[in-house]
């Protein structure tokens, strides 16, 4: 029961309280880039969720079972980025072979995920928070992906309406998106301190 409690708390905390986009500024590039339409945003969010769950789990395993045993922590970053690049490649091949229609809708997003800071950032945060339980690492990675999807979908919804608004010329495009994100971050700040 206690473990379950920790898992649920961890999940809620990473989705809402410590949302990667609004409190850690991770994954801002795709956040600004593909939040124009809601279906694309959702596709991107799903792709990120999948890759982040996979690579969060894999990097935790490699970190704890290989690098720490052998005292090779110095090579951590190089290993992490290799795992992420490999995971993205693997997912891309798998999806292309078995779900061609899904692959079509992901399009260019899949390879772009390699340089999404949210993925590497989450792997590093799991390492920083000293999560020593595989299950917890999996739940946190999955939650991070869900949090990212939520953030990018909210933004896409707002931006679709923003197209109809009368925005000053100089603020059109990225600036107004950033300001909107700021106001959203303000809203999410209300959750701060709810869970550790």
């Amino acid at each position, binding site marked *: 029961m206690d473990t379950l409690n920790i898992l649920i708390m961890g999940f809620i905390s990473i989705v809402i309280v410590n949302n990667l986009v609004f409190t850690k500024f991770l994954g801002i590039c795709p956040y600004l880039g593909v939040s124009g339409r809601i279906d694309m945003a959702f596709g991107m969010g799903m792709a990120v969720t999948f890759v982040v769950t996979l690579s969060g789990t894999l990097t935790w395993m490699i970190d704890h079972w290989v690098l720490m045993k052998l005292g090779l922590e110095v090579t951590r*970053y*190089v290993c992490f980025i290799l795992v992420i690049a490999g995971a993205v490649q693997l997912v891309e091949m798998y999806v292309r072979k078995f779900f061609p229609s899904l692959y079509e809708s992901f399009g260019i997003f899949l390879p772009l995920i390699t340089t999404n*800071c949210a993925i*590497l950032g989450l792997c590093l945060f799991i390492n920083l928070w000293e999560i020593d339980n595989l299950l917890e690492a999996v739940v946190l990675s999955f939650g991070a992906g869900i949090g990212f999807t939520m953030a990018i979908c909210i933004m896409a919804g707002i931006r679709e309406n923003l197209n109809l608004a009368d925005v000053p010329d100089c*603020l059109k495009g990225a600036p*107004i998106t950033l300001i909107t994100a700021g*106001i959203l971050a303000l809203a999410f700040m209300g959750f701060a301190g709810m869970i550790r």
Partner: protein
Amino acid sequence: MANDTKVAAGLYKQTLLAGLWRENPVFRLLLGMCPTLAVTAAVKPALTMGLSVIFVLLCSNIVVSLMRNLLKPHLRILMFTLTIATFVTIADLFLKAFTPVMSETLGPYVPLIIVNCIIICRAEACASKNNLIVSIIDALGMGVGFTLTLCVLAGIRELLSTGEIFEVPVMPDAFVPWVAMSMPVGAFITLGLLLGLVNIISKKKRKT
């Protein structure tokens, strides 16, 4: 021959200046947003971050430029990433050894330089196509442009959130600190308004 040197010198100057304003990585290309927003709560960490990025950018541009003729197209990005990851590890260990407090403040944002789009973008767009000297100058221009932008943003945020710059109080006593400026909200909104300002300035410039 003299003419060649002149042309080359002009090209170098142009490359150097491009990073500072015309192709400023943050304001113009919208690259490297994560560190830009995350480490600019105060000037000191922003400056440290900027210097680390200059170091990594310079080293990776040099290495990529030297091995540009050996690269296979499909393994290109992987090689870039591995080169960058190596230099980021060096920078991270250096910061941990000599400025442990700063290293703690920056936290995971130092290793996150690996996925900073500026560096991979410069490797792809400049270093893999140009010779060593152009690559070095380009790295310096882009790096300095990035650092200056970070410092401007951090300066505004630190001034408004604490009334200090470089931890030296500059505002009158009656100033009430805007705590929100040191939080994520402040980062997003300040950057948004700065981008708007840059748009206005460049539009005015084009008219004249």
